[in-house]
């Protein structure tokens, strides 16, 4: 269940239909403090990044006045895009919501202060209603198209009449004509000024003025229809894309809270902080559904812990050594896991029981075998390297005369080529000493790759030993 296509739908619809919507206060004069066009889009966009959100928090996040935001949200509620819920709640209720919020980890809802101060205040929450938005947008498009098409062929439209008297300008619909009929039955008269009414074209008249020119009006409407289809195309395609997807459903506020809370509980108390942190990171990526994906991660962790406890008695050596970068403060790890134990202590542990002893003996045999194998392997490696270098030397000797032009060009690359040269030098120097000892020289040659060669052996031994 992905939110992404639906969020895109909301964003497209917001830009298509609510871009130039001004939300005015009831008692605010028309030429108020500048227009707030575009605010509707911003609010909708913000809501796509959230689930249920308390309106004060949203206002804070958007740096809007809460009254202004509420006005906008009421508008969207009437437009059926947003569901809102109001409830009286104490500080405790707010805490429940905050907990749910932390569980879903919206990421932007970090600011929560003054919870303790509240005493039974009315709080409003809002949330996008994706299923309904889909329907609303479709219905709106349908109505738009139908209106223009009806007007286009004059079908199913109720004629309107307008008083030509500019001081009067009354409008009448065809339903009123019975009362407006003049005495001779020839025309309709304005109730107010007794002037003869003229027909008004609903859509085109405003731009064309005189409605008599039917042909021009027709073309105008056709143009309008074409423009509409053209401009709303992305929205239509998005609608089609979303058509077969299940709409994200957050349920009522209470249900959502309960669900989020349950999800938080499932992760376990000790891990709660971690989960919220990790999911906060995810909050921006558009899938704020922590109870779907992340709980699984947590469960796996706890499962591992349980396994640890069981296996600790029987097979102490089977614990994996965690790499140092994985070990964080506060992690509950045994020493074995940190890799601090050397083979001797392990052997001591093993000798505590007879069975383990035998197993250990076997292991030791195997270990010596593997050591020998390793030595042989390294020796072979060194040999091969020698051979390679020898052949390289031979090649370079032969190539030297022709390679003059080539080498400078390689130098031009800069640092890289220089370092390669350095490498070569080291290898050249070491050549004589290679034959003496088994593994060491290879290591030296490989120094730039593995800085901690001394640790290397221990670790490798460990691993081998475990495998036995």
């Amino acid at each position, binding site marked *: 269940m992905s939110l992404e296509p639906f969020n895109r739908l909301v964003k497209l619809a917001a830009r298509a239909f609510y871009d130039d919507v001004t939300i005015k206060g009831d008692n605010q004069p028309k030429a108020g403090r500048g227009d707030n066009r575009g605010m509707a889009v911003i609010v909708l966009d913000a809501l796509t990044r959230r689930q249920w959100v308390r309106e004060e928090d949203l206002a804070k996040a958007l740096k809007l006045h809460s009254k202004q935001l509420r006005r906008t949200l009421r508008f969207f509620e009437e437009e059926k895009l947003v569901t809102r819920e109001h409830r009286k709640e104490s500080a405790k209720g707010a805490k429940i919501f905050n907990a749910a919020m932390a569980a879903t980890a919206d990421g932007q809802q970090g600011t929560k202060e003054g919870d303790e101060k509240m005493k039974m205040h009315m709080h409003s929450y809002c949330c996008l209603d994706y299923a309904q938005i889909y329907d609303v947008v479709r219905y709106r498009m349908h109505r738009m198209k139908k209106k223009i098409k009806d007007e286009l*062929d*004059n*079908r*199913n*439209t*109720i*004629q309107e009449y307008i008083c030509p008297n500019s001081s009067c300008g009354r409008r009448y619909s*065809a*339903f009123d*004509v*019975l009362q407006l009929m003049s005495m001779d*039955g*020839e*025309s*309709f008269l304005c109730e107010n000024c007794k002037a003869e009414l003229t*027909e008004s074209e609903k859509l085109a008249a405003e731009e064309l003025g005189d409605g008599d020119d*039917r042909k021009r009006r027709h073309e105008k409407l056709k143009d309008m229809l074409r423009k509409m289809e053209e401009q709303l195309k992305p929205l239509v395609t998005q609608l089609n894309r979303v058509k077969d997807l299940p709409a994200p459903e957050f349920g009522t506020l209470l249900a959502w809270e309960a669900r989020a809370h349950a999800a938080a509980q499932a992760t376990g108390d000790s891990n709660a902080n971690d989960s919220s942190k990790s999911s906060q990171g995810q909050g921006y990526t558009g899938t704020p559904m922590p109870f779907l994906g992340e709980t699984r991660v947590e469960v796996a962790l706890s499962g591992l812990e349980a396994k640890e406890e069981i296996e600790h008695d029987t097979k102490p050596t089977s614990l994996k050594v965690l790499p140092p970068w994985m070990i964080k403060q506060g992690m509950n790890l045994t020493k074995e896991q940190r890799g601090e134990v050397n083979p001797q202590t392990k052997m001591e542990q093993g000798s505590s029981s007879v069975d383990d002893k035998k197993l250990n003996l076997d292991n030791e045999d195997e270990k010596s075998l593997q050591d020998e194998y390793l030595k042989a392997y390294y020796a072979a490696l060194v040999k091969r390297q020698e051979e390679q270098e020898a052949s390289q030397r031979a090649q370079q000797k032969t190539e030297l005369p022709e390679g003059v032009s080539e080498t400078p060009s390689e130098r031009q690359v800069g640092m890289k080529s220089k370092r390669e040269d350095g490498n070569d030098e080291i290898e050249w120097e070491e050549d004589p000493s290679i034959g003496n000892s088994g593994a060491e020289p290879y290591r030296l040659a490989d120094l730039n790759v593995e800085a901690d060669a001394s640790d290397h052996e221990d670790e490798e031994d460990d691993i081998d030993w475990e495998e036995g």
Partner: protein
Amino acid sequence: MFFHITLERNMQLHPRHFGPHLRDKLVAKLMKDVEGTCSGRHGFVVAITGVEDIGKGLIREGTGFVTFPVKYQAVVFRPFKGEILEAVVTMVNKMGFFAEAGPVQIFVSNHLIPDDMEFQSGDMPNYTTSDGSVKIQKDSEVRLKIIGTRVDATEIFCIGTIKDDFLGVINDPGATA
């Protein structure tokens, strides 16, 4: 559309009718009162087909009138949006024409008359096609579609169209006369 439904009404009967034919008098008065009226809810009451039940009368203090609750069955007519009706043209002017389908008045504006019909003024104003084959004037019968209704408490007014397939004049009195 016509419906046959059961309605209720409280009838007030003058004391002078109290006598052997009280019931007949009551029904006659019901018909006189109700038939032809219009209610926004049920439409026009066309005819009463029967009286189901007459309840106990209640004498009103002071006047001596008696109130009977009467249950009766009636045929009602209520126009709906989208319904096709046959109607008689009653008046034609340049704004369109008026027609009546029984008790219902319908207005068809000139935008809802096919584009090829032109208004012709004169002592018999009419809408005529360019070749004169079809003419809408007073007393023409037309088939029209209702595209809007205005239902008041005591009145129903409709807007109709003849700009659709199979709509328009169904007989022309001018041609036969």
